[in-house]
């Protein structure tokens, strides 16, 4: 491999240590971190692997220590919930109860004689690491759902959560005047942080209507904390003069080489842009996202059963003890349906009790039920309407990696009879690039006429959860089935 600078002869490193841990947790976000420290407290030996350099996942992302932030909590809500768990992680690590492996990206989990073997690539050198464990908890979180629009590949158009992640982790902003657009409560948090960090946010453009919450008052009233959080975001936005435009969408980003303005149009109830309602808002960046998508590739590769969610995404089917349908594999957090950090913490702890064979504390069970109900209400309110494809032009790239425009996907469905995302992918290469359809999957499915209520709504299957150097694949034992 002449263009690979890493050393192909480096031996595979096994980190199973003296004893095979009882539990391997994949993901050190709120769910995985809570699960790992609770399981360790309940007596299990735990290995905690995460692709990132520091624990915390997406929500508790914070500046690297080298950045010397005095008040990292200024970018966060509920910082204490994280700080206590991180302290517990360090204590369990010193006591040898948790082996914490940051910068380890697990790319496959395979059954191994009643146990599991996890394969990871570690560090910037992409070292190959394997680890065995008696049971596995998948807490791999979510990534953002993106619906394309003309101009969304221009530099300056960035994910809303991505802008938040870059701000929290690197103390940087994509621009000075940032339109925040898409759908979901994350937009309010993102607009609030960008404004607090000095950006001008001319508008938050929300495709759904917040009146959709009105029909779901019971779930809201059971979650006063969430209401207070919403009110806090709302008042922060007011203070910074941010306008909230509901039932609106960015239908085009304009600029040469980078974003200079967006067109914002009103939508009908199905998210179809209403002709003649477009107006331009000058800006130098757009932070966009249409909710989150559970990250399931490790789980679906293992055959874990899934269920359609109210937001149109697919999540894992889990029992009261956070077990997947595959014995020995547990899951918690966004993988079981998008629900926020507090729910992820709750489910992580619940999973630990069930892994340790202990009865779950009633308060945890109640909290999960309450937060799941809220998540369901939110998911339904922000589910994309089918009319959004009305803002695509034929030449709008849908697949960013392979540069496949909407016109070619429509042609595949119209002239070549493709009825699902898989067939479209084979005919057009949409979803075959580096990101393996993470960015275009939901859009391609919609263009192919798939609705998630259809029986065939299965999550994208990706053979690997990240690109893996070929030499590691060659080392993998043959299919154990």
């Amino acid at each position, binding site marked *: 491999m002449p*263009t*690979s*600078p890493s050393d192909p002869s480096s031996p595979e490193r096994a980190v199973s240590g003296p004893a095979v841990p009882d539990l391997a947790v994949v993901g050190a976000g709120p769910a995985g971190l809570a699960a790992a420290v609770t399981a360790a407290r309940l007596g299990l030996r735990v290995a905690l692997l995460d*692709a990132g350099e520091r624990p915390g996942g*997406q929500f508790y992302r914070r*500046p*690297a*220590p*080298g*950045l*010397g*932030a005095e*008040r990292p909590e*200024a*970018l966060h809500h509920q910082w204490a919930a994280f700080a206590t768990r991180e302290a517990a992680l360090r204590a369990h690590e010193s006591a040898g109860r948790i082996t914490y492996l940051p910068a380890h990206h697990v790319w496959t989990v395979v059954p191994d004689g009643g146990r599991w073997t996890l394969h990871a690539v570690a560090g*910037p050198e992409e070292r190959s690491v394997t680890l065995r464990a008696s049971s596995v908890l998948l807490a791999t979180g979510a*990534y*953002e759902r993106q619906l394309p629009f003309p101009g969304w*590949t221009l*530099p*300056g158009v*960035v*994910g809303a*959560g*991505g802008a938040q*992640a*870059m701000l929290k*982790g*690197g*103390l*940087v*902003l*994509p*621009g000075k005047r940032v339109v925040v657009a898409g759908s979901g409560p994350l937009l309010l948090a993102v607009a609030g942080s960008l*404004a*607090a*960090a*000095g950006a*001008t946010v001319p508008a938050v453009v929300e495709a759904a209507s917040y009146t959709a919450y009105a029909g779901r008052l019971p779930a809201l009233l059971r979650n006063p904390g969430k209401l207070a959080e919403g009110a806090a975001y709302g008042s922060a936005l007011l*203070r910074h003069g941010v306008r909230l435009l509901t039932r609106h969408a960015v239908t085009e980003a304009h600029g040469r*080489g*980078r974003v200079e303005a967006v067109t914002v149009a009103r939508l009908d109830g199905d998210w179809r842009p209403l002709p003649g309602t477009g107006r331009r808002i000058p800006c130098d*960046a757009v932070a966009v996202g249409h909710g989150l998508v559970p990250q399931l590739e490790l789980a679906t590769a293992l055959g874990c059963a899934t269920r359609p969610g109210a937001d149109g995404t697919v999540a894992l089917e889990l029992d009261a003890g956070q077990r997947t349908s595959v014995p020995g594999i547990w899951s918690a957090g966004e993988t079981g349906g998008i629900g926020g950090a507090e729910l992820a913490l709750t489910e992580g702890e619940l999973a630990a009790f069930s892994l340790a064979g202990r009865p779950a504390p009633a308060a945890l069970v109640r909290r999960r039920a309450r937060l799941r109900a809220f998540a369901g209400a939110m998911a339904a309110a922000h589910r994309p309407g089918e009319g959004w494809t009305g803002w695509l032009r034929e030449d709008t790239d849908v697949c*960013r*990696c392979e*540069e496949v425009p909407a016109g070619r996907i429509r042609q595949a469905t119209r002239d070549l009879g493709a009825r699902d995302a898989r067939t479209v992918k084979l005919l057009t290469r949409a979803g075959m*690039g*580096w*990101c*393996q359809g*993470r*960015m275009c999957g939901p859009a391609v499915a919609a263009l192919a006429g798939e609705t998630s209520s259809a029986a065939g709504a299965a999550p994208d299957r990706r*053979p*690997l959860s990240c*690109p*893996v*150097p*070929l030499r*590691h*694949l060659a080392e993998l034992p043959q299919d154990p089935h």
Partner: protein
Amino acid sequence: MSRPTGDRSPRALVGGAPRATYVLRFDGRGLTAESGQSIAAVLWNAGILAWRTTREGGAPRGAFCGIGSCYDCLVTVNGRPNQRACLVPARAGDTVTTQEGTGRADLAV
């Protein structure tokens, strides 16, 4: 909280100062990096939003998802192509170059 806009910045919000700053070379330019920032953060900080071009259209791209899932931020670091700039920490002495097309990928997928 009612300070004028000019005083607001990510740094003002979290306080403190970086442990070290150093220079990273980007296409021959020197950019100031703060220790702990990813390569993408250093580039954003310098107002640079694009650092690669696509294989088909030669279109400019930079960081999009910010969390390592989109692979839009691929860059060549110290001669090594296809590094995700949003994940790779910038280090003193790094040379970063615009990546054109595939960057001679050895990616397995």
